[in-house]
């Protein structure tokens, strides 16, 4: 397992009044992108990762299951 996790550049996010949005964009136009309404937890994780961060730190702050889930969904990727 990689020691770090990071947010891919094509993943963007922001907090909204209720939860937040994650925008996964690799092509032209919002029609070609995917967007998720996410919980506050996801935004908390992405803000905590702040680009890239030790996987152990993220797991300690949240949980291994959350990290595994976000990596599986491509919101986070395994880093070095």
């Amino acid at each position, binding site marked *: 397992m990689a020691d770090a996790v990071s947010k891919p*550049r*094509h993943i*963007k996010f*922001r907090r*909204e*009044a*209720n*939860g*937040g*949005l*994650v*925008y*996964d*964009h690799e*092509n*032209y*136009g*919002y*029609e*070609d*992108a*995917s*967007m*998720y*309404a*996410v*919980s506050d*937890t*996801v935004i908390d*994780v992405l803000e905590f990762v702040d680009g890239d961060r030790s996987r152990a730190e993220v797991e300690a702050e*949240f*949980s291994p*299951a*959350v990290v*595994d*889930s*976000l990596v*599986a*969904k491509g*919101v986070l990727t395994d880093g070095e």
Partner: protein
Amino acid sequence: MASDAGGADGSGDGSGTTGASAAGGVGAPLSAPVTITWEVTLGCNLHCDHCLSGSGPGMQRPEELTTEEAMEFIAELDEMDVFQVNIGGGEPFVRPDMLDLLEELTDRDISTCVSTNGTQLDETTLDRIEAMDPLFLQVSMDGLRAENDAIRGEGVYDQVVDALERLEDRDIGTTVNTVVTRQNVADLTEIYDLAEAHGAGLRLNRFRPSGRGEDAWDEFRLEEDQIRFLHEWLDGKGDVRTGDSFFYLNALGEVRNNTLKQCGAGSMTCLVDPVGDVYPCAFTQWEHLASGNVKTDGFQAAWDEIASLRSRIDDHEGCPAVAMGSSDPNGEDPQLRAILSGD
């Protein structure tokens, strides 16, 4: 809208991701659009018969955003966390400051997509564009040589192919954009092959009765058998990108894929015109749907106002721009209606 398969709430992992909805994403008006279309000028070196904005040579408006105003607007977009800006016009590259504005956007890590007619892409311009990230180019081609040049002007097809050839070896994400018309729909496979041969994707846009397209509506709009052909063709071309809610459905009215294709006008996206006026989308630039100006009101105020206009747009029957721009008194979308009911 949105949504890809993603995870679902209740999965027990706490990550809580769900597809967002068209009318509000997270159940309430968004604090900012997900993406905007910014028509940076009405000036253009071409004068296309179907131009949605009615732009052309000498059409720049004197009150178009200055460089300083445009930079302030970009700063506000960044502050609001707008994810993506789609640049259009007119022809963006007739603005002398266009590359500076694009650098400002990409330096702020705002995904930037530029729709261009492809005739202004000299090597110096491409050198600067290639250094920008994230930036994507969309080059217009509305048919093979005869059909394209009949709409866009003599010799334009060859200029666009030349641009595609020069883009081929560059690290610039490029898409050929085709407005599907009665005249070019039969050539889609050849257009697809041409784009693919140059390492570019193909994106189809629907022809709408907007700008000069309003006058050309009856000349260019698809006939019913062509609409059916188009949707059958699309079913076999999963990698072709499409640009509006119309293509979100297949010929049977079923959801074609899981990308963001439902109408997000005024709820997830909006248009900013060359003078800074804000509308729900590029095809609904009507006075009764205007919602402020980025120079005089600020973009945040204009966006906040647009949420109240959203209730006046009914996208249930298809693209409201087509519906409202058509002569159909019931406001239905005649093309989508033909697909769904066989009228």
